[in-house]
């Protein structure tokens, strides 16, 4: 075989001809494509494939069917679980965003004034972030323990206040779970907001001061508009993260009492690992993916055009 015959076949590998100076990108992209395909795409494809079957963890080959979709999406408990997921996600995202922003503002302000304790504040918040979800759940379970020796209720009693049914009252338990999740996730929002605050051009504040803007006006007309892209990106990230949270809930309440704190991710986990229903779990995973993508698109539509590009 002549060299001329070989050359065109090898060109896709980046073997440039004498006059072709532009190397092919494929050899450089192949490792990434392979890794992404193997570790990210293949499992996703498998989940879609399982969703169209009746596979269980108990054995058997399974058959292709659409009945799993119909069965899962018409379950009477699904609506309640989606509602619980919405409340948990909305509460957590709003809480993490607001407190994270407030903490970042305090840290930046304190740094400007060279106040003592800013590093301690940042480090303390970050400690909560690095605590694994299961451990965080156990810590909060001890704090919320409603026994006479429970953490928070003992403090309330010391202050002469009535104990709270943190985990046994269906109307309170969701907010206890949100509180524990906000505690854990706020540090991430703080770090994102802190970085974005540091990137704001100081001349904008100088101009606002020249115009006689008050601190409140500077916050609403300079800081927040400048933070908008960071806030939206942070919202996307923490929404997806919160939708996938189940480790902290499983160790704190197990989804109970009843189904009061059973979010979609925990329900999916239960369906797969307690009902052994792999196909139904796959359908629920696709539902979670659709919800996450839908919310991400909604957030992204609010991004300024130039940031999107």
């Amino acid at each position: 075989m002549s060299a001329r015959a070989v050359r065109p076949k090898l060109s896709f590998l980046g073997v440039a001809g004498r006059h072709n100076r532009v190397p092919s990108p494929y050899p450089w992209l192949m490792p990434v494509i392979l890794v992404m395909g193997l570790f990210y795409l293949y499992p996703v494809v498998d989940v879609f494939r399982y969703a169209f079957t009746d596979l269980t963890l108990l054995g058997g080959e399974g058959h292709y069917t659409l009945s799993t979709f119909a069965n899962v999406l018409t379950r009477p408990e699904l609506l309640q679980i989606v509602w619980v997921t919405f409340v948990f996600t909305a509460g957590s995202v709003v809480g993490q965003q607001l407190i994270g922003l407030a903490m970042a503002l305090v840290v930046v302000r304190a740094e400007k004034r060279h106040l003592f304790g800013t590093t301690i504040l940042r480090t303390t918040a970050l400690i909560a972030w690095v605590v694994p979800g299961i451990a965080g759940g156990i810590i909060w379970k001890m704090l919320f323990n409603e026994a006479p020796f429970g953490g928070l209720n003992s403090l309330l009693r010391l202050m002469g206040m009535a104990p709270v049914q943190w985990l046994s009252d269906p109307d309170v338990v969701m907010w206890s779970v949100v509180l524990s999740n906000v505690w854990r996730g706020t540090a991430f929002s703080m770090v994102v907001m802190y970085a974005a605050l540091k990137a704001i051009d100081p001349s904008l504040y100088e101009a606002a001061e020249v115009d006689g803007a008050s601190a409140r006006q500077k916050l609403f007309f300079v800081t927040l508009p400048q933070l908008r892209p960071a806030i939206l990106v942070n919202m996307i990230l923490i929404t997806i993260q919160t939708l996938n949270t189940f480790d902290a809930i499983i160790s704190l309440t197990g989804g109970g009492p009843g189904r009061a704190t059973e979010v979609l991710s925990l329900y999916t986990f239960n369906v797969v690992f307690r009902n052994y229903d792999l196909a139904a779990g796959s359908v629920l995973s696709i539902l979670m993916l659709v919800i996450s993508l839908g919310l991400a698109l909604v957030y992204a539509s609010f991004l300024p055009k130039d940031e999107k590009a």
Partner: protein
Amino acid sequence: MKKSLMAALAAATALGCLPAIAEDLITSDRVGPSDAPKKMVFRMTGDGPSSTDPTWAAGYAKLYTDFINNHPGWQLELQMMTGDISQEQARMLEQAKAGHAPDCAAVDSFVLPLFKEAGVLKSLSPYFTKEEIDQLFPFVRDGITGKDGQIYAWWWSTDLRVLYRNTEIVPNAPETWADAKAAALQSVEAGMEGILFNGSRYEGTTFDWLGNFWGQGGKLVDDAGKPVFADADNRDKFVKAVNYYRDLVESGAAPKRVTTIGNYDDLNAAALAGTSALFVGGNWQYRQLQNAMEPEEFAKWSFSMLPGITVDERSTGTGGWTVAAFSSEPEKVEMCAALAREIYMGPANALQEQLPTRADLYDKYDVFKSEANQTFAKALKVGQARPGVLIYPEISNQIQIMMGKVLTGAATTDAAVDDAFKATLDAYARL
């Protein structure tokens, strides 16, 4: 010259051997020499050298050391399970189906049918005599035997649920539900929390409560394994048993926080803190309380059979752990059977005072002649194991959800029971 050379060689050999001599035979994840040519992976619960109870840990360390010394050339790689047994067992089943299971593992008796059905276990029949198998309690023997008559695990311990009480506050053992409620209210008047039991999303919630349903003659599944717990024959008994717990909470005989209890340690903690005088627990907790309490404090505690709707309608749930082999190498299956036999079939029962599954072992070990263990053994006679059917985990899951709704007042008993039954039947149809 020759002598000096020999001495130098001897010294070098001795020095070379030092690390091996100094090496611990037991580490947190290994038993036996690290360079042993043969290795068996054993996935285990806390019933081993890593037990949180120092006495048990030391006892197991000795048992494992003796075992590995009896099997030169072997090392055991120990893999610890977490406390979430349902998840651990489901994951192990999936691993087994994919061919990645450990060589040998602890399998909870209530999920053993799933492993047998999946065909992932190796027969242990060649390694146990007919006499040993015949000594097993019938429900145990049935549980480990496959359709082909082979045994696929060794069920080494069993347990049961009882009612613990502080005799200083509750002197007499409650025998009926009405007695239990009265005793709990009496303890509340004495400044206690009332009766405690598992009531959250946890397998123990279902299992500890089922005795109240079984005691009336209720059945969870029919002979074909189909859920029947709320059909025409059983619904009334089921609702009565649920309403017993509901009444305890609504009357103040039990605190509402029972819906957050999902761990037997929480019950021990309340007993140790002196905030509860009455709780539904497992027989193994008797030894735990003894180890954790001062002798004069422990002397106040006693236990009795779970109360029933009447004195004659009482039952209790019995469970336990098995050891099963997954390896495709016969040598490792034999080693797994040896582990079950030499460590768990008797010695571990005696060490932890975990009730044996063989009638003859009650006479062999003195610890089982104690009054407490004789009482446990007597209660075993009305014990009932969870049905070995594929749908059981979902029945349990639905009972846990139902219990949460009922005890918090989020749903009426009838509505919650109907929801649970319908959800279980739907899941059964998909199996």
